[in-house]
């Protein structure tokens, strides 16, 4: 955490710059924040006023972040995507718990048919939350599981269908094509599906998160972000650049490994943590 001295000066600006950079806010966004601060503050100004100014500048950059999407369709289909290991499967467990606590009927579809024990892992989450569960043979077509999950959700009167996908690096064309096929298959069943495409981003990830957001958005039309692992020391500052450049809101944050460890994204809490 950065300690700011009493008055606004070049040292203060440097301390501020360090706080922004070490939060993974990135070069371009940090420079525009510092630029705003230079423009709107004066030398010798009280540091608490400057802090408030920085706070306001960053909050205004997060103006496109908002709560969860209204669930209007039935079933409301949520496709969960993202690179390897950043928390998709665990997030689905948390989302199932979240929606079931609201009294919704939830069905989970195991469309990661590739990774070792991915289906078993997700099945455990379905058991822990009491959600319905659809799976197929390992190495079967993920799009077919997505299809079956939708159909089963419809038949069983599910309010929410959560579809888990295999982690994949966004620079792998064949894997991104596979993801795009899952969306296409869902669209054939229902032109509005998937109603939500949640990109899970790991809060410890650096600037690569921006290219992840761009590439996954190009392939699957990301409608929301879940920022996982915010219970660590990473601040997830690259979210600000993503919000600015791409208009994608952060829906939830992950703050642990249990089913309760999911919260709605609160931009104020997020920005405050950058200065802690």
């Amino acid at each position, binding site marked *: 955490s950065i300690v700011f001295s009493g008055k606004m000066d070049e040292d203060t600006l440097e301390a501020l710059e360090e706080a922004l950079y*070490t939060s993974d806010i990135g070069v371009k966004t940090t420079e525009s924040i510092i630029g705003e601060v230079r423009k709107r503050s004066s030398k010798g100004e009280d540091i608490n006023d400057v802090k408030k100014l920085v706070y306001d500048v960053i909050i205004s950059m997060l103006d496109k972040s908002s709560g969860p999407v209204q669930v209007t369709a039935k079933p409301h289909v949520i496709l969960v995507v993202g690179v390897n290991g950043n928390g998709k499967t665990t997030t689905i467990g948390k989302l199932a718990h979240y929606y079931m606590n609201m009294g919704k009927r939830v069905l989970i579809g195991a469309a990661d048919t590739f990774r*070792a024990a991915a289906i078993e892992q997700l099945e*455990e989450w379905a058991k822990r939350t009491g959600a319905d569960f659809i799976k197929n043979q390992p190495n079967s077509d993920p799009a077919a599981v997505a299809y079956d999950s939708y159909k089963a959700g419809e038949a069983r009167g599910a309010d929410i269908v959560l579809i888990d996908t295999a982690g994949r690096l966004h*620079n792998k064309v064949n894997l991104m094509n596979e993801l795009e096929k899952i969306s296409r298959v869902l669209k054939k069943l229902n032109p509005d599906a998937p109603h939500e495409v949640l990109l899970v981003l790991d809060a410890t990830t650096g600037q690569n998160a921006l290219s992840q957001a761009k590439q996954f958005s190009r392939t699957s039309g990301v409608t929301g972000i879940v920022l996982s692992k915010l219970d660590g020391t990473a601040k997830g500052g690259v979210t600000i650049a993503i919000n600015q450049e791409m208009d994608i809101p952060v829906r939830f944050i992950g703050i642990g490994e249990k089913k309760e460890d999911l919260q709605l994204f609160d931009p104020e809490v997020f920005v405050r943590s950058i200065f802690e």
Partner: protein
Amino acid sequence: DLSGKLESIFKTLKGQHRISEENIKVSLREVRVALLEADVNYIVVKDFINRVRDRAIGEKVFEKLTPGQLIIKFIHEELVRVLGGGTAEVAMQKGAPTVIMMCGLQGSGKTTHTAKLASYFRKKNKSRPLMVAADIYRPAAIDQLKTLGKQLNIPVYSEDSKDVTTICVNALEFAKENRNDLIILDTAGRLHIDEEMMNELIRVKEKIQPHEILFVADSMIGQDAVTTAAEFNEKLNFDGVILTKMDGDSRGGAALSIREVTGKPIKFVGTGEKLDEIEVFHPDRLAQRILG
């Protein structure tokens, strides 16, 4: 790209045919941006730039290179110097089983690389590896390692116990009976700030005395790399680093931060999800990647 940027900087500055204080200052600003965008830690970048500046100012320009090319050369050399060094070899015991303990943050690739290492050493040294399922927390973690073990035809030790240290002790006993000469402990991902979980690893280390502790780090990690690596190193004094998911397109600057802050060598890189996608670390390749 950085070399292009530096070339154009030197073209527009006076005295472009030699290195001067002014054109070093401007070009190092570009290098600083490149390193920050590559996820090198802010403080590490500061120190790095200062070292390169000192060298550049002191250097006589004999070479047939333009000043821009020379700056790039210094940066590249300094990167390779820092990234390399330290032995990339894993301490294989002669006449006794070797124990490797994997550790790291959640989702970094420990389980996958436990299997990759087992397969790698079986090929390279004709080892008889045993993998140990010491992650008793993550749903289906044991299943995951067992599945990988089946794919490779490498045995996996697991037991239905609530104490990780006991599991590891029993695994070593099993390895003796089973004549396994390489034992790799797959542990649960954990936060460096989770005192209880870090203490679990400290207890395993004290009881088992692994010959090699490998910190498994995701190559796309950002500024937080220094905090996590420093803490894991402080608590466990690990022997080396495995940098995973290098088949992605992150610049991998965190590797420089980890190396600077812990002084420990990067031993392997993971280059894919398949179990043969592991390579010995090449500092030169990563240096080029970090510079973009």
